[in-house]
């Protein structure tokens, strides 16, 4: 009897070893975030409404001719994504902190970078969904075709870099009382290289620039994405531990 009980227990303990559970943990965090968001729609609706308001305000504020519109589109788009993204990043980590759930995640016997990657993937998914809705609205309001494969690639790369660094910094800022204002103050200076490269590459595609001129900012975006993800992977554990 004792042996049977011990066997069952050791089987469970064995199954809790960190080895091989990394991808499962990443998938679990993504599943949890998406499931909770589908119910509450807190994060998504805030990001979407805020994005639509920004492009509407710019539309009324900048009464531009078609040519000038093309030149400002990249800047307006990335300002919209950056501001809406900050809202999403703040909310995503606040949900973890408010009910102590971040501790619950940190108590799991997995490499803590699995939590980071899970949060990055879900934050990226929410940001991309908002962008997919914002792009056609922007196209109609500004009479510009934004559905160009090159531009979509730039938006994807820029969003990856933004959420990679934003998720790390939101994990830092959420520990403070002034988290809502601290995140943009920390995030925007760090993410400037990503935004500059993204604006330049987007602008290149919108104005029909030569591919050679667009390649440099795209390569920079790829490099920033890799650097930010690698740095966050290395330091996330220290950031979340007291």
């Amino acid at each position, binding site marked *: 009897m004792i042996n049977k009980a011990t066997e069952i227990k050791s089987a*469970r303990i064995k199954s809790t070893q960190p080895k091989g559970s990394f991808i499962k*943990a990443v*998938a*679990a965090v993504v599943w949890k975030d998406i499931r909770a968001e589908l119910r509450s729609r807190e994060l998504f609706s805030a990001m979407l409404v805020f994005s639509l308001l920004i492009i509407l305000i710019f539309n009324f504020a900048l009464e531009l001719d078609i040519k000038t519109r093309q030149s400002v589109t990249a800047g307006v788009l990335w300002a919209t994504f950056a501001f809406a993204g900050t809202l999403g990043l703040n909310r995503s980590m606040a949900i973890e902190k408010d009910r*102590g759930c971040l501790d619950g995640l940190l*108590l799991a016997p997995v490499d803590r970078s699995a939590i980071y990657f899970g949060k990055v993937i879900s934050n990226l998914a929410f940001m991309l969904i908002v962008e997919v809705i914002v792009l056609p609205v922007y196209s109609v309001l500004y009479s510009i075709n934004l559905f160009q494969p090159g531009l979509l690639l730039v938006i994807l790369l820029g969003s990856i870099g933004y959420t990679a660094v934003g998720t790390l910094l939101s994990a830092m800022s959420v520990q403070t009382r002034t988290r809502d204002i601290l995140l943009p103050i920390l995030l925007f200076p760090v993410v400037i290289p990503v935004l500059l490269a993204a604006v330049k590459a987007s602008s290149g595609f919108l104005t029909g620039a030569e591919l050679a001129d667009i390649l440099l900012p795209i390569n920079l975006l790829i490099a920033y994405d890799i650097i930010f993800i690698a740095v966050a992977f290395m330091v996330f554990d220290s950031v979340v531990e007291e």
Partner: protein
Amino acid sequence: MITVKKLVKRFGLKTVLRGVDFEVQPGEFVALLGPNGAGKTTFLRILASLSRPSLGQVNIAGYQLPSQAAQVRARLGVVSHLPLLYGDLTAEENLRFYARMYNIANVEERIAEVLEMVGLNARRRDLVRTFSRGMQQRLAIGRAVLHDPDIVLFDEPYTGLDQDASSMLDEVLKTVAAKGRTVVMTSHDLARAEDLATRFDILSRGVISASASRKELKKTNLLAFYKQALAG
């Protein structure tokens, strides 16, 4: 099972723990008592690998902290005064999520067992945000023992509970301890601690100022022992 030697924890210039020595044998139920600000929660957070010690040694189930934190976490369950549960997920979904994080085998079977143990089987498909504080705390205990840990840490588990919910929690705590698990619980509630624990340690001014087993306490009551420890 737990051995702590000369543990120091500093937050900037403030020293919260000033050389704590603490030892728990397998199967013991230790109540860690002390006034507000004594460092009980900080101490438990270090045992749970949520906080790094500034100095000293912490060994849990044969593993050192912080270097073998993942192995320690696999053997630990933690219940705090916050539920560590997602309000927008159901009870079942919360447990399923944590089961995946702990890479537990036979997930559905284990979730059913745990929900039965904490008496929430009938509410398994309800969102956690619709639960009362007592129900959330019972589910939090279910979450903490989901992976069948050898050691369970309770940080002020009775905070915010009414009489009925506290009595119900007593029963769940007794069930958790009856399975031979090692339990460390911080509390302000001396009566409850006296009822549940097999040993009582008093943490005061950043050190363990007194320690007594239930047998040793028979000569005096816990309140007198506690007051004496704080005065000393």
